[in-house]
Structures are given as C-alpha cells and as structure tokens.
C-alpha cells in the first residue's frame, strides 16, 4: 500500500478533482462531498484519538463551535464565512484548552466520559441562550450565492473545497506521523508512564494534538453549515455526531493516515445511499447498519482494514 503514499496520493487527489470536474450529477457530487468531508473529519479526530490514543467522544463540540461561530458572525456582523471559519477554528482551539487543560490529567475511559460531558454542556448552553443562538429550533442560513458567502448555485465548488480539506488533513497527518510530536504521541499512547519517564511532556503533547484536531474539526463544521444552510444544537453538538465521525477511522484503521481515507470511501457512500433509498419510511435503519458495521469491525478486524490488508499482503510475501 506504499504506492498510495506521497506523490501517489497527490495523483489520487488529482484524479478525484478530475472526477468532480467531469461529474454533472448532483447526487454523485453530494456523495463526493460527503466522502471528502468524512475523510477530513476522521483524520482530524485521528490526530488525538488515533495517534494520541485519547478517545474523544465529544468532537461534536468543536464541529458545533465551528458551525455556530461562522454562522453567527455572518448573520450578526456580516463577516464572510471564510473568515468566520478561521474564527471558529480559533474558538475551538480555545475550547479544546478548556477541555484539555483539566481533563488530560484523566486517563482512559475517564477522559472519554469527560469529553461526552463537555459536548453535552455546550449543547445545553446553545439551547439555553436562544436569543443569541436561535435555541433548539436552530438557524436557517439565507441562501445568497457568491464566493464571499461560500454559497454556490451548484455543488462543484463545494466539492473542491471539501477535497481541499481532505488534502489538508491528509498531508498534515502524514507530517505529524513523521514529526517529533507524532513519535511522542505514539509513545504516550503505548505507555504514558514510560513516555514520561523518558522525559516527554505527555500533557503538552496531548494538548497540542487536541488543539490541532479541534481546529480542523471546527473548519469542517463551518463548511457544513454553509453547505447544508441549516444548523441546530441537537445535531451539531450531539453524541451521535461524535460517534459518526469516528466511524471511518475505526473501519479504515485507527492511528494511520490512510485508514480514515479508506474507511470513509467505504462507509460514507453506503450511509448516504441507505439514507436516500430506505430511511424515508424506515427511520433508523441506516444507523442500525452503521452500528452493526462498527461492532463487526471492532470484533473481527480491530486494527482496521488498512492494517489488516497490508498485514496479510506482508505475510504472504514473507512466507
């Protein structure tokens, strides 16, 4: 699978860009957008959840902060979502410090529980301050096409932006993987006390990884608000979303850069097709399917498809 790395991945991205340019069908474009953003969200989560082994089930908080910041800035102050997106990212980084500084003293399941609580508190606050946030009804963004508004008449530009996110998160992941931070994260994931004994400031490493992860997640939250033109606290800050965005990672392979890419290309089209073809009259069915996929993958190939495939190929070569 080494051929997918580096320049080959660039080739893959160019191919996808050509695909976006060629495809006219609105649904296929939507599918591509969903896949690209799933990759990006998965890779963003993977920075702290995969490389750092700190399993967050509260990433919806950062996503929601991104979506709400850019939307509220644009509605109240007329700020372009391009800037609002950055502002959302910065706010999410601050939020990640609020979460991380106290909670990275916790380990394992305790940390996971704290992240769930964190996203829940944000959801409750967004619902409560309804004069400012629109409350539980949510906000419908006024559609006003234009580059500055990050709203477009057809889906092609959205697809390019989403592809951009995918490229950004992928190369950042590869960079982190081969950086000092990446090695530190791997070390602390394997054995935190051991890593500390070697002089690694594990607390700081986890914080930095969470900040990066939060920033990226918030960017995509902002993007999605512009794409769907509707946000509400029940979905932007939900535990369901936090779980859903880890799905490509779990399927493809946790703690790898290619894993979430593979995972998203497998599971996201399936989810979207199920959504379109069956969920109209059968509420819940598509989520049952992804729950089953999650359980089966975790039991049968916990290392994910990427490592499983490379593992079997490698074994064949040596034998």
């Amino acid at each position, binding site marked *: 699978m080494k051929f997918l790395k580096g320049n080959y991945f660039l080739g893959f991205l160019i191919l996808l860009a050509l695909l976006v340019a060629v495809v006219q069908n609105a649904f296929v474009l939507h599918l591509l957008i969903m896949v690209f953003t799933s990759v990006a969200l998965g890779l963003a989560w993977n920075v702290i959840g995969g490389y750092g082994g700190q399993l967050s089930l509260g990433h919806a908080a950062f996503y929601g902060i991104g979506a709400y910041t850019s939307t509220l800035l644009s509605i109240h102050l007329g700020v372009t979502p391009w800037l609002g997106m950055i502002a959302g990212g910065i706010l999410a980084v601050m939020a990640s410090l609020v979460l991380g500084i*106290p909670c990275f003293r916790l380990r394992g399941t305790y940390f996971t529980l*704290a992240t769930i*609580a964190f996203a829940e508190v944000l959801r409750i606050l967004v619902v409560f301050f309804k004069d400012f946030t629109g409350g539980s009804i949510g906000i419908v963004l006024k559609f006003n096409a234009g580059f500055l508004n990050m709203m477009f008449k057809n889906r092609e530009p959205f697809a390019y932006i989403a592809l951009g996110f995918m490229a950004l998160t992928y190369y950042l992941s590869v960079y982190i993987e081969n950086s000092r931070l990446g090695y530190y994260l791997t070390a602390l994931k394997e054995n935190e006390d051991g890593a500390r004994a070697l002089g690694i400031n594990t607390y700081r490493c986890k914080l930095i990884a969470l900040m990066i992860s939060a920033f990226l997640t918030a960017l995509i939250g902002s993007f999605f608000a512009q794409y769907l033109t509707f946000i509400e606290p029940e979905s932007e800050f939900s535990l369901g979303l936090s779980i859903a965005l880890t799905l490509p990672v779990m399927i493809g392979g946790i703690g790898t850069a290619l894993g979430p890419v593979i995972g998203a290309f497998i599971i996201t089209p399936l989810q979207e097709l199920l959504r379109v073809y069956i969920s109209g009259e059968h*509420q819940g069915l598509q989520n*049952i399917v992804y729950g089953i996929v999650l359980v089966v993958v975790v039991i049968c190939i916990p290392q994910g498809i990427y490592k499983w495939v490379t593992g079997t190929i490698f074994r064949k070569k040596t034998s």
Partner: protein
Amino acid sequence: MLIIIGQSLISGILMGGIYALVSIGLTLIFGVMNVVNFAHGEFLMIAMYITFWVFHYFQIDPYVSLLIVTPALFLIGVVTQRYLIQHLIQAEHYTQIFATVGLSTIMANAALFFWKADYRMVKTAYGTSTLNFSDLVVSYPRLISFLVAIGITVLLFLFLKRTYLGRAIRATAQDITGAKLMGVNINRVYIFTFGLGSACVGVAGALLMPIYYAFPTVGLHFVLTAFVVVVLGGMGNITGALFGGLVIGVVEAFSGFFIAPELKEAVYFVIFVLVLLVKPSGLFGLTKG
C-alpha cells in the same frame, strides 16, 4: 422558601433513587471487569419498552412486570457479555468502548425503527396520586420507585457480602489472578456480573415507567446522568453510586429551581468535571467496592 427547599429536597431524593439504581448496574460492571457499558442507557430504554408493551397488551401493572423485565434484562446482559464483551476483555481499550458504543447505536435505532419516535406512557390509577404532609407533596409512584430502588440496592449489597457468588464477584474485582487461584471461574463471574448489572437497570426501567415516558433515545439522558453519578461515587463503588445518585437527584432538583430548569444538566456536568479533577477516585473514598 423553606417549603420550596423541602419540596426540592424530597423530589430530588426520590429521583435520586432511580439514578442510583441505574448507576449501580453500571458501576458493578465497571468495578468487576473494567468495562464501561456505553449501551447501558439503551438497556434501560429496552426495559422501559418491555414494561410498556406488557402493560399495553396484557394490562400488567408496571410494578408487577418487574418480575418479567428484570429476568429479561438479566438475559440481555448475559448475551451481551457472552457474545460481545467476552471477546474484547483482553483487547485494546478502544475496541471495548467502540463495541458498546456500536451496540448502543444499534439498539437506539432499532427502537426507532420498530417502535417509532412516539412518546409512550403507562397510565395507571395511581400515576398522579400524592401523599401530603402539611404543605409538602410526595408523589406516590415516585415514593414507591424510591423505596424499591433502595430495597434492591440493599439486597444487592447483601448478596455481594454474604453469598458465595457475591464473594467470587468481589474477589474477581479485586484480583483476577488471585480469584483464579482460588478456583473462581472468571468467565462465569463476568457473565453473571454483566447480567446482574443489566438486571438493576431492568428494575429501574420498570420503576420509571409510571412516572416517565419511553422513547428511543430515553437512555441517553439517564446514562449521562449515570456517568456523572458513577464518577461521583467512585468507579466500581456501589455504596458510592447510591449516595452519588441521591446527591445528583438533589442537585438537579435545586439547580432546576434556583438556576434554570434547562441548565440543570449543565450544573451537574460541571460538578462531574470538578470531581474528576479534584478526586478522580470519587467523593466516597475507595475506588473499588
């Protein structure tokens, strides 16, 4: 003012009994096998639905249906442990979390699929009846739920202290190797414990039905509360979960009145994080019970 405080205290403590019962199931499972069952809330949801359907089709009173719901949930717990968790006991930490998270997704959405998103309620003759002590009002079904919850907790406690199986469970929680050397069948203890923890939530589900609605995501609210309670009482500590449940019930009632009803969850989540930070082993001493 005094009446308001008294009233909040009463309704808080009564609700706290239910929280305690849900949390005891969770903390028991955690204490013995170090697994947090993220599908615990969905087990509660299933228990509530069973109570509802049994009432709907056979007019069996929720309190009587305890005799059906509790064994049913015990069985669900046993099956979950035997066919899901058992494979993951040795596995990496994240697989355990995501296996139960996946299970919870399946169960909540299966409920949505089969039973729709409607709010289901059991209408009983005693549903709204109250006991009045001068100015204080005590809801009758809430009082019953509370008393049964406390009774079950005491029974569970005695079971763990006095019986062979109870001792085997505690031994396993303390030291797996030691328990094995003493001839305890660890896998059986695990299966039984998971069943027992799930049965607790079955009791809670039946007790909740006369005072609460069943809907597919009802588990989420209660499991989040249970996480708070369990951390408050110390993970794995049963007495801690009992007191933690009562504390959260009271905190909820007071913050609902004095701050804002919509913010009561935020208040106890803040408490949760504070406890995690100041004393991760819980407010009530030891980590294991």
